């Protein structure tokens, strides 16, 4: 081996590059890359909390969502809180849009859970300590056993003493502190014994929700929007049920929060009430629980006309209980579903596009210099850069999504640019220019690296803002760009400079 070649191979910059390359290839072989939903397929959901929350509350939201999705048997979930209002949920391996929509429904139905008896709230989702597997009997009756906290059990025992057959209500996201405007028939139904289980003398549903949740229910009698707004003073929101829909627009124009529930053919008044209140139940209080003795192990039972309905009712209650309570309501504000088959297409396509771009770089660089000794090192340095970026991504389990790939492209683009700067600086000392005072190679490399460091510094400065406090997809872009630039200035560019010096006989 020639002395020069040896010197090149033992240069620490070259050794560093080789070490990183080998390390990256080994990492990639042992730990395959993980891809984002937009490439591998799956569903990505963006949920927004009803109002901004602090970081502790946000953590509760994330934990609770995780629990509920796990309960559903969904795998490969990542849940990430971003800022004080956004939760990003990504679920891989979702193959149909029906499944995707089911996950969306689960997140949106995720709510604040209350247990109420006789107008008193005796427990919330926090008080549910354990939920057992639900059972369905051959007569299509079902039961969901669960355990409530000691405090809740004691409170309940006191409330329920001597009241067998009374209604126990469970609510998921009831419209707390609101004004409900309903047609007369619905008002009468709420104020009847319809929701009283086996206790006609218990307070009506209307009385119970008024006391427990500060919900005021009024009958619609052609009131104007102004009159309704006046009634709703001090309330958080207005729930309109089957009244003229213009009222919704008019009230919203007054900056009030309005929920509108239309009456639909085939939907009974009872169903509308249940939907508007998020009511589960009412369940009839069993004899055993009316004894005044606190009991933590309780169960909810019900019956359905057929097995499928029974299954659905039981599993709903099961999930509601199991997932605990959310401290704040979530709305799905964005959703993206990519089928896995398409994702596979994207992956091969990204690979081809990348290789083709690399070939193009090779050919164009050759065209400019008419010299393979420049074109091949430039193109292969770019390839090495990609390998190292990917190796690093695999190592830290970074999910490669399309914006991350765009970031890699950006890094490669600047990488090629900077290699051209190095090459031209090296070549600038040649024949035709020799008349002028020839700067030493060192000086010229110093100049090239000034340009490289200045542009790397600006890129990193610009991108770090994105990385630190932005939500959504731009994060992946910023991450790979910064990673690429760092790998470039620390590993590949110095090595390329050595190789170029060697090949161009300038050392």
């Amino acid at each position, binding site marked *: 081996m020639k002395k020069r070649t040896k010197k090149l191979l033992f240069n620490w910059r070259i050794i560093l590059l080789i070490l990183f390359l080998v390390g990256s290839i080994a990492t990639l072989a042992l730990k395959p890359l993980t891809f984002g939903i937009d490439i591998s397929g799956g569903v990505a959901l963006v949920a927004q909390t009803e109002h901004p929350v602090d970081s502790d509350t946000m953590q509760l939201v994330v934990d609770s969502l995780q629990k509920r999705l796990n309960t559903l048997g969904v795998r490969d979930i990542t849940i990430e809180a971003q800022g004080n209002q956004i939760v990003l949920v990504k679920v891989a391996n979702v193959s149909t849009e029906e499944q995707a929509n089911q996950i969306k429904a689960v997140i949106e139905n995720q709510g604040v859970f209350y247990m109420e008896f006789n107008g008193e709230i005796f427990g919330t989702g926090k008080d549910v300590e354990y939920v057992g597997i639900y059972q369905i009997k051959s007569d299509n009756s079902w039961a969901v056993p669960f355990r409530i906290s000691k405090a809740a059990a004691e409170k309940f025992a006191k409330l329920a003493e001597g009241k067998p057959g009374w209604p126990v209500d469970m609510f998921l996201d009831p419209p707390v502190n609101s004004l409900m405007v309903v047609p007369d028939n619905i008002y009468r139904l709420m104020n009847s014994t319809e929701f009283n289980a086996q206790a006609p003398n218990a307070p009506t549903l209307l009385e119970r929700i008024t006391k427990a949740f500060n919900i005021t229910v009024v009958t619609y009698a052609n009131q104007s929007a102004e009159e309704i707004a006046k009634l709703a003073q001090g309330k958080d929101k207005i729930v309109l049920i089957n009244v003229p829909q213009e009222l919704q627009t008019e009230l919203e124009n007054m900056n009030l929060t309005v929920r509108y529930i239309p009456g639909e053919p085939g939907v009974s008044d009872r169903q509308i009430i249940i939907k508007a209140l998020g009511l589960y139940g009412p369940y009839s209080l069993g004899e055993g629980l009316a004894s005044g003795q606190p009991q933590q192990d309780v169960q909810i039972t019900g019956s359905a006309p057929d097995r499928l309905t029974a299954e659905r009712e039981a599993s709903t209650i099961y999930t509601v209980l199991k997932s605990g309570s959310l401290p704040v309501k979530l709305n799905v504000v964005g959703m993206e579903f990519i089928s896995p088959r398409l994702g596979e297409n994207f992956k091969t396509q990204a690979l081809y596009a990348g290789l083709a771009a690399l070939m193009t770089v090779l050919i164009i660089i050759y065209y400019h210099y008419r010299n393979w000794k*420049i074109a091949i090192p430039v193109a292969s340095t770019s390839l090495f850069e990609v390998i190292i970026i990917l190796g690093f991504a695999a190592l830290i389990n970074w999910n490669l999504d399309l914006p991350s790939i765009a970031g890699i*492209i950006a890094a490669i*683009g600047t990488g*090629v640019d900077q290699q051209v700067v190095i090459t031209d600086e090296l070549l600038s000392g040649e024949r035709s220019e020799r008349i002028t005072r020839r700067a030493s190679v060192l000086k010229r490399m110093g*100049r090239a690296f000034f340009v490289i460091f200045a542009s790397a510094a600006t*890129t990193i400065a610009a991108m770090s803002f994105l990385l630190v406090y932005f939500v959504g997809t731009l994060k992946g*872009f910023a991450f790979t760009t910064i990673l690429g630039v760092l790998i470039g200035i620390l590993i590949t560019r110095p090595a390329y400079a050595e190789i170029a010096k060697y090949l161009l006989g300038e050392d």
Partner: protein
Amino acid sequence: MSKPKIKEKPTASDAVRARKRKSLSFLAQMEYRKMILYPLVVFLVALIILAVHFPRLGIDLRGGVVVTAYGVSANPDQLAKDLSGKLGVEVRVESFTGVDNKGVRIYAPVGTDPTGIIRIMKEMYPDAEYTHSEVQPTFGEISQKQGLRAVALAFVAMAVVVFLFFRDPVPSMTIIFSALSDMTIALALMGLFGIELTTATIAALLMLIGYTVDSNILLTTKLLKRKEDTVDKAYLSAVSTGFTMSTTTLGALLVLWIISTSQTIDNIAIVLIFGLLADFMNTWVLNAGVLKWYISKNPRGGSA
């Protein structure tokens, strides 16, 4: 390829280099007033275009529903008419083709149920592959605000670093203005060519910061710090490097744009192409013009 001989000093053939420099020498001969004036005119035109025709916001910034069907070839207008009739809402249909795939994108207003659209589509095209996304306007607003803030902050960060590196107001301001003009022109071209402003294209605009700074720093360094050459020679050597840089990147982006059928990658590639074309002008004409003028006022003497 012949075996490389190490002793011999292999470099780009002089003929090639000479030809490139000759073809670029018209730039070197340009008078600096014109070099400053022309790009400013282009910048103003871009501003006017933006004022009358700002790029449309994509659904991720505005809210809405989009269903993509792969493996469908259909007349978009006819399909839009059919779907609008069946759904009762106005939809817009776009067709696209890639190397190995073609399909349609269906845009529907906020609140439309995407599964409804897919159900109707599946009746007509059972073998197609579907994806869908929907964004609520509230989230679109958040993304808009963040995108705007991202661009503004990245820009400011870039400006600060450029100032720190050059500590000289005129060249620094020119670099910053070049970046601004690159982004403005790219945005104006997006408007003209109907490319939507999305989080992905915002990312592309941010990427332009990196590319702009590269070439501008190269030029500024060569003209201000390289004292052994004449201004014209330094400029010519910088512009020839710059030409190599831009054509290489443009080539790679063009290939990316042709091969990919992912809308995200396509849009990023095309916005970068717009920006790089603008950058070529802004660096090698505008910035060079300003620097030539600056050097003629402040001859490069002892300190740079």
